[in-house]
């Protein structure tokens, strides 16, 4: 199949499964991109994700990077268009209905019911991603320290990312 069509189908589908924001689909995206389609190795996937985190804009930009890796600039635009279009069309039509149903009990039940599922999915995505960036005890320690610092302090994430890159450049990770 044409890679642009494959990109459009994969990310168009993921767009509609992305409940609670991007991190929900991280494990599935990683599985599809590194195992099912084998476009990237898990290490390359983690590196592209890091690049998207360090860049301004929504971190779903990692999708554009994957598309770019598969089929150049056209791949980037098709993949990013596919991850945005289905959910955006749905949002466009749902916005009016949402106001109409905002006091309905069933709407609140669905909202409350989805929270633990989303939380589990996001946790799984984080653990799977961390497993691919953990090469030895030093990278594990760096991830652990970054997790604690970003959870317990209000230091800007970009500053923490810059320090992490600096630790790597200095050769401390071997």
């Amino acid at each position, binding site marked *: 199949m044409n890679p642009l069509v494959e990109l459009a189908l994969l990310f168009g589908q993921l767009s509609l499964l992305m409940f609670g924001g991007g991190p929900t689909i991280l494990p599935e995206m990683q599985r599809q991109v590194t195992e099912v389609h084998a476009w990237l190795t898990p290490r390359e996937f983690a590196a592209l994700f890091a690049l998207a985190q360090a860049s301004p804009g929504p971190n779903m930009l990692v999708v554009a990077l994957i598309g770019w890796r598969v089929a150049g600039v056209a791949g980037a635009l098709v993949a990013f268009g596919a991850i*945005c279009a289905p959910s955006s069309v749905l949002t466009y039509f749902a916005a009016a209905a949402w106001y109409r149903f905002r006091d309905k009990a069933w709407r609140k039940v669905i909202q409350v019911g989805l929270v633990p599922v989303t939380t589990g999915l996001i946790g799984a995505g984080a653990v799977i991603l961390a497993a691919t960036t953990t090469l030895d005890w030093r990278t594990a320690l760096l991830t652990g320290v970054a997790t604690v610092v970003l959870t317990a302090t209000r230091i800007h994430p970009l500053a923490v990312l810059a320090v992490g890159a600096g630790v*790597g450049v200095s050769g401390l990770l071997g």
Partner: protein
Amino acid sequence: MYDTTVRPTLSALFMGFFTVGICGFGGVLPWARWMMVERRRWLTGAEFTDLMGLCQFLPGPNVINISVALGARYHGALGSVVAFCGLMAAPIVIIIVLAIVYDRFHEVPWVRDGFIGLAATASGLVLSMALKMAAPLWGRPVAIVVALATFGAIVGPRWSLLTVLAVMAPISVLIAWRGRL
């Protein structure tokens, strides 16, 4: 809190979201709120919270859903397209330039080492966000069990997302409906 709102023109919609796209390092939502509520007064704080609820409930990237819903509210489909393009114009160009630079230099030893550090730290950023999102479940045993079962199904047998959602979402909504969550 302001209680009057301003109706944005199409070019203001574009420029407002363009600023958010450029500023949004490591999380775009706080910038989106600041721009729409405090800086430009397109929405009151309460309206923003309501809009945010809609965008979290629907699938898709939250901030992109916000741009689509807000654009639609003031200028229909054209407004949605303009707000979306404003938000994404700068980030998509920047990321492609960064990708080309990365491709050119990622074999250089210090660049490769820097990326190993950057990637490990980015994992910390995602783990930290997962912990912050899990915090409200503390002290709610049923919700914790549902979250752990979802987590286990993905991390252990590597079930596909579609399977996990098809099984866990109805179970969890049913538990919530019985008031046990």
